[in-house]
């Protein structure tokens, strides 16, 4: 068996910025000297519709680019939650949006009101930074700082602050 790998799935609805989230996560890993591969699955809808980013991070080479045995699945929609039910091990953390998903009550299921919190922050669109914060707390594959740096490089100034706040909030509020 090669080096330890992390597999993280970010699933939700097109337009929630999850693919960008996945890319950021992967970039943060690369910045830390790890190998990372990011892939995506999406439908033909431009907005709405199922959308999913998969990130595999490793200190070794990443061959299989998808998540066949994820460490964490983020489910911001019911479809995302359902889609992975049959594919995950008992160890896999499923972090779901309490406002959108009905959990099956797995031991490792963890709910958080992502939508409501994002709206509270003042913009639905920060939901992906919020989620990234939570993901990193549960699955510390890269440091919060590396992630913040990536966001700094990627976001326009006026959006940045809110997203950093969301990242912090997600990171801070999730209890492992």
């Amino acid at each position, binding site marked *: *068996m090669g080096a330890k790998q992390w597999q993280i799935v970010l699933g939700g609805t097109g337009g929630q910025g999850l693919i960008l989230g996945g890319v950021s996560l*992967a970039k943060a890993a690369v910045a830390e000297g790890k190998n*990372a591969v990011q*892939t*995506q699955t999406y439908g*033909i809808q431009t907005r709405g519709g199922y959308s999913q980013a998969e990130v595999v991070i490793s200190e070794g080479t*990443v*061959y299989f680019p998808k998540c066949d045995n994820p460490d964490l699945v983020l489910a911001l929609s019911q479809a995302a939650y359902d889609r992975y039910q049959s594919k995950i091990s008992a160890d896999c953390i499923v972090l779901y949006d309490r406002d959108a998903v009905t959990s099956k009550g797995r031991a490792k299921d963890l709910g958080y009101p992502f939508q409501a919190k994002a709206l509270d922050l003042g913009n639905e669109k920060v939901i992906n930074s919020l989620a990234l914060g939570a993901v990193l707390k549960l699955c510390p594959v890269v440091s919060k700082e590396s992630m913040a740096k990536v966001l700094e490089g990627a976001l326009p100034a006026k959006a940045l602050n809110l997203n950093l706040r969301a990242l912090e909030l997600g990171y801070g509020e999730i209890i492992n």
Partner: protein
Amino acid sequence: MNRPVGVQFMQGNEACVYAALDAGAKFYGGYPITPSSEIAELSAKFLPQVDGVYLQMEDEIGSIAAIIGASAAGQKSYTATSGPGFSLMQENLGMAVYAEVPLVLINVMRNGPSTGLATRPAQGDVMQARWGTHGDHPIIALSPGSVQECYDLTVRAFNLSEKYRIPVILLGDEVIGHMRESLTIPEADKLEIINRKLPTVPAQGYKPYQTDEDDIPAIPPYGTDYIVHISSSCHDESGYSHSAPQTADKLVQRLHRKIDKNKKDIIQVEWFGPEQADLTIIAYGAISRVAKQAVINAQDKGLSVNLLRLITLWPFADEEVKAALEKAKAILVPELNLGQIVHEVERLNTFGPPVHSLSRIDGEILIPAQIMEKIEEVLK
């Protein structure tokens, strides 16, 4: 355009565009289609910055026609498409082969047939790349297995196309095209760039399709003192129509010969895993990565498995595959189709090991566990 150098993190489709520009491409003619559209979009952005032109044509027939024209006019040219567009390009792809106009065609394969599942990966156009146009024609097709190879093989595609005056198909897929990972972009002066051969004889009496022993014509772009006559009809060395049986035979034989005799230069494969193994997997593109993982997993389970990865799909790696057939006790060919390259492997199998096919056509990629399961089934 600021050329990125060193380690970068990007999509396969993006890497193709940087590579095309690095190879010297100045002309893109295309029609958008999922999952290749990023190649169009980035080309539209970058080409004007290198004095090139992004031309969005009315359809895929026009797209390949425009790049054939642009290439004949001297610009390295490329297009990108997916299944439906690739089907529409077949007639003019044959024209480019026949008239020996270099070009690079990137087909980012998606699930078919027909419109199928536009956003999902497949490897369903592999035989089409070989046989899609009418008449007997040679072709070169390369299959990248990583973002790095999207870059490297795009450069190589241009080089082979220019060198042999033949269209080269980069046969990617949705996974590789949209996947993001690290790659290293070499310094500009470290890149080997090949440009098409120009004539050395005087313009007077020059015949565009006259070749020396290398069988490759030296055709300059339109506009020099050389008169160039390019034709989709059967033509003699002058490029003018000529319909004698010997003319037809000579032309088509030479078209094939110029590729066949250079297979060594054109064909690339990679061996992965132990040198000698009970089972050899033969795979390409995205699935070769899955296979690598499976080889590793098999090793962990004490199974003797290795991988022959086909980087050049066409012309087919006959010698290398024969070597695999000779050495292994069994062969497994996993593909995102109902079994295409496996036919070629079977064709070469005068050695006896059973050749197994593993297919997936539901728009998802094969996972290592599926390959493992098949390995165990075969080796038990």
